[in-house]
């Protein structure tokens, strides 16, 4: 394979090459191996990977429209490499951020000092649809509201930025492991020579984290994974994780509440459940407390939870801390709770509930990315430079109706990485979603799900919007 026609552009940080076209030191081994590999061989490798994903059923589900149904996550088989020192920095920054976010949640569902001290506006917290008044005063084991976090990072020429904290039901970790398995099998010699750090221990670490959060002292607490069901976009991941952590994969209809405890219905009778790793949104958890029309949750669950007889992971109400408006205050939270400077920077964010930010957003729609605060997965977003005047007009109308529902950010020059596209190396924009676990202590697997915007020039990396994945190799010292 050659890189003669590779479209290097100094406007974007390239994950493999320096601006002068020479490979970065930590990518030299990969670069030289790729030079030696015939492109046909790489194309065949790509096909093998796709075929194995298809036959193993490693899929996600797309909702609505003609495209609806099970889809294979496209994988680009050229890995993205992170050197050890870079990873150490990210790891420290991610741990710092999660620590502050857990302190924030504990605070706002308790005495709310941060609000009283005027660091975060009260209306931003209490007015957030994800703020769950039902969680006020509810103790959570070890103060851990967020036990599983998937933080979206992007890199520009200025360095890494946190784009989003996913604190509710972050997904993608199964693809991180699946991508690794597939790519490792196909680039064995290179993989071995690069001293890549393993990621397959994620399931074991998650299991340990969940066990630490069990409500009773049990050597082997009963852990279940609560899924919305087979039609959920991330159902494959739910199966995968349940298997990896040795949990039973349950739906709401498999559970019942009796005498202040949660039980699951088994062929030998009812079995008490200690920890529910739920992949169901807050709204659907308990129809007696949240959405009454929910069929996905369990009536009475919140009562058991509040009595401390079952642990929900993540805790309900964590969405207030990954709200796109509250996001802007995370650096202040770090300073407030930890008295430290943030190790990872935020993206400049205009909060449209502020009149000046609203005006700025309206005036600069063409140059900004505008997002709805309650949406995720790339849905409901306007990417200014890629939009038409009509789309901007329609979006502006919605923005005027409910400014508080929106934030905007400058269009980031997301870094690019070489991908195998139609038999040649082409640069595509990428992001990075590492996963952070926290029970009694913080655990971070040295790896991440790297999402790729496979369409040329596109900045949207979401799988539901035509994105794919890449294996991330974190190198050892």
């Amino acid at each position, binding site marked *: 394979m050659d890189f003669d026609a590779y479209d290097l552009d100094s406007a974007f940080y390239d994950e493999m090459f320096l601006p002068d076209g020479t490979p970065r030191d930590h990518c030299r081994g990969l670069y030289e191996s790729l030079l030696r590999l015939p492109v046909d061989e790489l194309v065949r490798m790509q096909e093998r990977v796709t075929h194995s994903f298809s036959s193993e059923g490693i899929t996600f589900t797309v909702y609505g429209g003609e495209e609806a149904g099970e889809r294979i996550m496209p994988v680009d088989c050229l890995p993205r490499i992170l050197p050890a020192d870079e990873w150490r920095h990210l790891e420290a920054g991610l741990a710092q951020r999660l620590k502050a976010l857990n302190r924030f949640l504990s605070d706002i569902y308790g005495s709310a000092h941060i609000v009283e001290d005027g660091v975060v506006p009260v209306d931003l917290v209490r007015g957030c649809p994800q703020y769950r008044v039902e969680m006020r005063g509810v103790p959570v084991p070890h103060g851990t509201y967020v036990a599983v976090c998937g933080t979206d990072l992007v890199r520009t020429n200025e360095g890494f930025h946190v784009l989003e904290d996913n604190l509710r039901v972050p997904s993608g970790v199964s693809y991180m492991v699946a991508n690794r398995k597939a790519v490792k099998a196909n680039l064995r010699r290179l993989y071995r020579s690069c001293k890549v750090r393993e990621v397959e221990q994620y399931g074991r670490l998650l299991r340990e984290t969940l066990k630490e959060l069990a409500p009773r002292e049990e050597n082997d607490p009963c852990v279940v994974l609560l899924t919305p069901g087979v039609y959920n976009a991330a159902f494959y991941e739910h199966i995968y994780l349940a298997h990896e952590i040795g949990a039973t994969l*349950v739906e709401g209809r*498999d559970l019942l509440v009796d005498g202040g405890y949660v039980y699951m219905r088994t*062929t030998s*009778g*009812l079995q008490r459940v200690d920890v529910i790793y739920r992949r169901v949104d807050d709204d659907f958890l308990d129809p007696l407390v949240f959405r009454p029309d929910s069929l996905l949750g369990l009536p009475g669950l919140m009562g058991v939870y509040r009595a401390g007889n079952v642990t929900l992971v993540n805790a309900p109400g964590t969405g207030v801390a990954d709200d796109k408006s509250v996001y802007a205050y995370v650096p202040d939270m770090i300073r407030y709770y930890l008295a430290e400077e943030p190790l990872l920077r935020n993206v400049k964010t205009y909060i449209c509930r502020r009149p000046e930010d609203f005006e700025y957003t309206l005036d600069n729609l063409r140059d900004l990315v505008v997002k709805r605060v309650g949406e995720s997965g790339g849905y409901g977003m306007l990417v200014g430079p890629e939009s038409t005047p009509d789309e901007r007009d329609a979006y502006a109308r919605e923005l005027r109706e409910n400014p508080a529902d929106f934030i905007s950010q400058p269009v980031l020059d997301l870094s690019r990485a070489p991908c195998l596209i139609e038999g040649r190396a082409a640069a595509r924009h990428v992001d990075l979603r590492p996963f952070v676990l926290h029970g009694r202590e913080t655990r971070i697997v040295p790896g991440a799900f790297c999402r790729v915007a496979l369409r040329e020039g596109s900045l949207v990396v979401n799988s539901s919007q035509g994105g794919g994945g890449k294996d991330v190799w974190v190198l050892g010292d």
Partner: protein
Amino acid sequence: MLSRSAQGLYWMGRYLERAAHLSRLMQLQVETLVDRPLREIHFGWNRVYSSMNQSPPAGTLEAFGSDDYALADSYTLADHLTFEPTNPDSIWNCFAYARENARQIRNYISAEMWLSLNTTFLRLQGLTIQEIWKTAPESFYAGTGKDVATFTGVAEATMYRDDGWHFIQLGRYIERVQLSASVLLAQIEAHDSQDESFDADWANLLHLFRAFDAYVHTYSVVVQPGQVLDLIVTDELLPGSVRRSLDAIASVLDAIGSGPSPDASEKAAALGASLCAAVRDCRNDVTAWRATLERVNGDSRKLHQQIMDAFIAYPLESLSER
């Protein structure tokens, strides 16, 4: 194990058994289209539908007057039984439902089993009757039958023999008993109602149960209806006999043991055992076969419900100890 997962495994077993049975029926039926008399073809289609407890779609099989007509109807019926999305028993739907169940209970089956079933599903996805009808459709049906056999072999070699395994076996054998009883009753009825010139093709029935070689070995090359029924219903050594399936159900129920609702599980075990005894002790004549098979047909449906009551949808008030 989770009750819903046990139910998923049970239904996966049932759907795959149904797919295998229908594949064999279709393979034999499609073979008859080449050279058998129209009357026999007509009987064959009716036998397929009655064994699936269905009626042929309206407008078909009403006037089997000519070869052209017979072949045109056969094409329509083969499509209905193979790919029709609204026919819950079509071969495609059986695989799709089995795969859908398997997908939800992937953690209870081996990775190899999932891979085997998913590969079949992906292969069949998008196929149409036009494509398989162009050349030798019987090879398509032989292929789907073989897919189920491969899955069964993979399961045999790789699956842990826990309750998950037992529920697959329960589904598989209950489905087999019901389908066998239905097809045998259809055969007996056709045999009784036709004049002597009609050959209900008992040899074909032996092939359906993969019993032809065993028959020749046990009896002779001359096919006698009573002996065919004796072999298929009561033989202890024939893998597909009704007796072996009922014995398998009884031993699986024994292995699962008492569920959360002991009364219900004891009832199911008792019914299973009495069906075994009824078949074992059946007199060797066609009237007795018919009565026994009718009982098997009805009671195996009852047994299905009792298994559900005992392990899946048991009443919660009966649980005193948690």
